[in-house]
């Protein structure tokens, strides 16, 4: 009887294992097809001069050209500037909004979360079109009309090197924090009430609670948002592509846009693959640095 039960259990276990492997296989096949294969292909292509009718192996030429290209250097610099200006501000804004939402009643919290998350649901193209309308360079443009109320001359927001980068940054500041706010609110809700109670008993002020309870407890969340924010910012493409096309005079050419142009405008897929891998390496190094210096005492 016992032997029979063990057999049945073994068979059931084998059946469970088979199903488990089957489900894992689906994910693995998806990963292999849509992630691993393109990455390996990009790596191989980066050593070739790509032609649809037969590519030619050219060694490290694509990498050499990438590292010596003035335009690639400018694109990296633009991307760094964009990242430095957008990511920290995004973190501070998201955190501030999350803190302001927290004391509200649940329905009000949900309403605000929905409002702030709305731009994340809207198509990026639609958002860009709205911002193009706001940045209309003629005196009738929305932003220029506001400036005119203060007697300021109309600005060529996207058409001038002195304002084009700021225009993209400003657009980012005002339109992309929904996800971060929701993550921060979730993290704030996870902080144990007893910490605040203990602090109240000790007579801690709002800022003391913020500094000694909230910020340390949210450190893993902040690190996560910082790392993903920097990665996203380094890969920024859509805004520059739709709003400025990288101009004027390459003042808003980001690395992502340059890779796209290299591949799809000039058909230099080998060079674009090399640029992509250099970008991936840069992002990897920056993420490692962030984990090294900020993630020491973070528990997951």
């Amino acid at each position: 009887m016992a032997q029979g039960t063990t057999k049945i259990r073994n068979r059931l276990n084998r059946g469970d294992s088979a199903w488990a492997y089957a489900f894992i296989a689906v994910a693995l096949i998806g990963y292999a097809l849509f992630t691993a294969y393109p990455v390996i292909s990009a790596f191989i292509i980066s050593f070739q001069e790509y032609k649809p009718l037969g590519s030619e192996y050219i060694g490290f030429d694509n990498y050499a050209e990438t590292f010596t290209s003035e335009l690639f250097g400018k694109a990296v610099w633009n991307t760094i500037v964009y990242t430095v200006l957008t990511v920290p501000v995004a973190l501070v804004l998201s955190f501030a909004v999350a803190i302001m939402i927290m004391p509200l009643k649940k329905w009000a919290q949900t309403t605000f979360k929905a409002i702030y998350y709305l731009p994340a649901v809207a198509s990026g193209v639609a958002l860009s079109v709205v911002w193009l309308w706001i940045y209309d360079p003629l005196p009738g443009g929305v932003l220029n009309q506001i400036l005119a109320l203060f007697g300021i001359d109309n600005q060529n927001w996207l058409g001038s090197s002195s304002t084009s980068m700021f225009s993209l940054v400003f657009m980012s500041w005002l339109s992309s924090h929904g996800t971060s706010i929701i993550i921060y609110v979730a993290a704030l809700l996870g902080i144990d009430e007893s910490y605040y109670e203990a602090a109240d008993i000790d007579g801690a002020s709002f800022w003391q609670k913020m500094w000694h309870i909230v910020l340390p407890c949210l450190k893993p969340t902040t690190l996560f948002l910082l790392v993903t924010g920097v990665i996203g910012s380094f890969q920024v493409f859509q805004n520059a592509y739709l709003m400025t096309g990288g101009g004027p005079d390459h003042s808003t050419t980001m690395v992502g846009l340059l890779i796209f142009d290299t591949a799809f405008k000039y058909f230099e897929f080998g060079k674009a693959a090399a640029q992509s891998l250099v970008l991936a390496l840069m992002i990897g190094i920056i993420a490692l640095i962030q984990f090294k210096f900020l993630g020491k005492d973070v528990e997951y």
Partner: protein
Amino acid sequence: MKRKTKFASTVLALMLSVGALSACSSNGGNNGNADPSNAPGTNPTASSEAPAAKDTITALLPPVSPKYQENFEQMAADFNKLYPNLTLKIEPASWEDMTQKLDTQVNAGSPPDLAFTNSESIAKYADLGMMMDISPYLTPEMIGDFDEIPYGYMTKEGKQYGLPAYLAVHSIGGNKQFLEEAGIDYKKVQQSGWTYDEFREAIKKGVVKEGDATKRYGFVFATAGVASKDYLGILVKGAGMPYPFTEDNKYAYTDEKYLTVLKAIRELIDDGSMPKELGSIDAGKRWNMFLTGQTMITGKGLAVFENSANTNNKKLEANDGSAVADSIKAEYIVLPMPSFAGQPAVSHAVVDGYVAFRGKKEPTEEHAANVAKAAYFLASGQVAATTNTDLFLSHITDSARKAAEGVDTGRNSDNIAADEALLKQAPPARDIPTELAADAIKLENEVIIPKLQALLAGEITPEEMFEAVKKAAVEKFGADGVV
């Protein structure tokens, strides 16, 4: 037994899947193997001796004219009537995604057999080895049907990569009422052209101010993003540089005449004749500015704009709410671009047409011949007549002229005469080596357009832009490769 049945059904299902997939890949493909009888080496002219093999020709087509895409079904049916063994499979595309779609397909090695594109892009695709030479399959009757100049635009290094649909001249267009108010003898300009100085004075007269604000500009050209290359490209032709390379294939834009044009671009903005925000004005906005009376002259102008202006005028007369908001009645007058530094006027001719591609597999002789037949069908006769009439363009084939006989487009007769005069100034096609042409396109995209945007924004001087172009050109073509 049950296991065996399962195994057998799985094998059968797999076989069917593979069969279906292979059918997908060959059906409508551009390798001509859709039918087993489409074997290589079949004589394309032997169709009278044996029943011709079935074949499908694919074509990627944008909305060439306002009514073009409405006729796709009719076009496919007419083609099939003419060649019962052939199917013309048309894939529609918008202008916005046309190039991207085509580029992706070309780079994946599976382009359509035909695509509607500009003759200038031939260099780009030929450099990849993805274009198909259809000259062996064009009969003398087909070739003889075309006007010589547009036909030559589709030729590169002795190979015929497609057939032209039309030759259009990029002009500029004025508002008749405003031109008259400014005292500009536009009829004389239409026939004799104007120099840069005459043009500059004329557009100054077109400016209307209300206090410090400009109510109307003399001239507005769409120059946002890549549109700026049209502006510069059109202007430099009037400065004696019809092509980026001289007759002996030296890069031309390092000539001092190029600097003259760059200076003019700044002067027209600094004069106040053009908006200082010119670099951000796109094609839609500049046309809106024309229809709403915010500019006297607009560019670039195409013949079809007269049709658009007339249509809007009719809507205004009928109090139709779909007329452009705040627009006024505007009679569109075709005008030439100015000439520079005593150089003869040269029109910026654009030849678009049906360009033939090949896939990764070598196309069969028979399929290539069928592609040539489809290209000719689309570029001539009734199809071309309908399209070019819709666009207010002159016909470039005898068969289209014949098909369009008696059709009245209702165009302004002065404009027809002006277009004819401009067409006479179109430069003949130059067979620039593929590699040089591709390098020139890259230099244009990487250096000229970005610098021009900065020049339009007033951030660099014409001299700085000229030096930047010169430096990049010498790096690309060598000191001996430039003038």
